[in-house]
């Protein structure tokens, strides 16, 4: 029996369709379909000037919009050859890591709600609010920040930023231990997660799975250390990996990543130098290509911009991590139960905004 899970379904967290063929409750075939939220962002970008694209790139992902606008600015800076002031880089790193924690918390919330643990949803959303508040004070907005600019950031940090960030980090580390009670300490949670949705290392590499699902399959690859892009080489942190490749490893990798992000925020706030936070960026891009590659909370985000000498890009190509990861879904799904669909697909952290673009 083919079952359409989607486009409107509690499991999808957005607007996509997963067709599964079930035999009783066991999945024998699966076929994801995306494209319900295609907004043509790549085409829209060709019609706008470079500063005007920053708000659009924010809208790529509602969960981690800071990463995407940062990625766009990074790519355009690579295209134009702009050097960013050092203070701006530190501010960006602190902001991105906060965004990573907020995004992972939102994932954990949705994941808990998928597994039927509403209390996990509420607690994680409550703690996400702490970081959202700091980002709001930093950027002026709650979800779509529009904060990074070509050649720096929009404005300087507020005077209370460092204190708030350090406080939020210690708060978060305390909360992470409490989540261990709620998730790892729960027999039912372990029953639902361990040995579910196995993805072998070779499959993960071949199918283009990136980010936490890749690291959960025992590949130690993180663009922040392996192809450092901002001031990440000066930060001291570990890359989380887990050898099993099941849902529990994905959960575990993200939990460790949150703790590591707290470490990075601490260092970024303490090492932040004084000085300019923005320089005047050129209006026109030269003829050529720019490439940006960042570690999104969901995987490897990548942008490829072709400039043609005017103030508008000639072509913008966005690589969304989830678009590739979701194509590997049948590999993970087949052979498990219908109820495992929510655990497996929830563990991938779907974000349809960036998938369909």
């Amino acid at each position: 029996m083919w079952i359409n899970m989607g486009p409107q379904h509690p499991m999808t967290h957005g607007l996509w369709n997963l067709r599964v063929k079930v035999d009783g409750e066991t999945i024998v075939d699966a076929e994801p379909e995306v494209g319900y939220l295609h907004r043509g962002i790549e085409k829209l970008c060709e019609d706008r000037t470079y500063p005007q694209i920053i708000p659009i790139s924010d809208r790529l992902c509602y969960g981690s919009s800071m990463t995407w606008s940062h990625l766009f600015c990074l790519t355009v800076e690579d295209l134009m050859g702009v050097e960013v002031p050092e203070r701006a880089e530190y501010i960006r790193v602190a902001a991105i890591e906060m965004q990573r924690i907020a995004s992972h918390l939102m994932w954990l919330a949705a994941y808990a709600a998928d597994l039927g643990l509403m209390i996990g949803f509420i607690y994680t959303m409550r703690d996400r609010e702490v970081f959202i508040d700091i980002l709001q004070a930093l950027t002026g907005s709650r979800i779509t920040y529009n904060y990074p600019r070509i050649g720096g950031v929009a404005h300087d940090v507020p005077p209370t930023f460092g204190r708030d960030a350090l406080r939020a980090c210690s708060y978060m580390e305390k909360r992470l231990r409490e989540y261990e009670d709620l998730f790892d300490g729960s027999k039912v949670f372990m029953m639902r997660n361990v040995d579910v949705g196995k993805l072998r290392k070779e499959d993960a590499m071949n199918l283009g799975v990136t980010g936490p699902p890749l690291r959960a399959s025992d590949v130690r690859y993180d663009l922040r250390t392996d192809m450092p892009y901002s001031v990440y080489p000066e930060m001291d942190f570990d890359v989380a990996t887990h050898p099993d490749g099941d849902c529990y490893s994905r959960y575990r990798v993200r939990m460790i990543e949150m703790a590591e992000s707290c470490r990075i925020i601490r260092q970024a706030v303490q090492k932040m130098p004084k000085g300019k936070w923005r320089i005047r960026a050129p209006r026109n891009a030269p003829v050529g290509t720019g490439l940006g590659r960042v570690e999104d909370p969901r995987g490897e985000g990548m942008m490829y911009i072709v400039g043609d000498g005017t103030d508008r890009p000639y072509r913008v190509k966005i690589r969304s991590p989830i678009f590739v990861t979701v194509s590997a879904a049948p590999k993970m799904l087949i052979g498990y139960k219908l109820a495992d669909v929510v655990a497996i697909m929830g563990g991938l952290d779907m974000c349809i905004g960036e998938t369909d673009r």
Partner: protein
Amino acid sequence: MTEGRQRVLREGIEKAPSRIDEVPEDRVVRALLDHFSSAVSDFQKLRQGVLRAKIERYELVKACRFLRDSLGFEHLSMISAVEYDNRFEVVYHIASYQNKLLLELITHTPKEDSAVDSVSSVWGGANWQEREAYDLMGIRFNNHPKLERILLPKDYLYHPLRKDFKG
């Protein structure tokens, strides 16, 4: 409980071992030139760890298989199609996990016959990206298992990222 999880619970985080030896940029260049001397050209080092090369489209799949099997490029990051006045460019960004390299392979295809061989047999992750390139730019990929529209409706007529598409 598997052995691996026991180890992780004990140690927290552990490091993955590297499979093959370190391959620096110039060795990639030399190996490619040795094997595909007629097809590969225009090597360029963009920055630390990022290479660019041009390749003729008839040797593409062979070269990709060689890259994956012999040089350790096991991850296809992105396939992007760019339209120019007289040609399409299909750009493959291929990453190596062990060697921390990124290779930008550029293939040209004329506008009248916009077709490239599919690399989805080499990297499974290329499957949907090639479908997307077909959907939005109209480049055909030979030997693709299922070349259908993916983001746009099945009965859509145009390829909207082409420059002659208006509204």
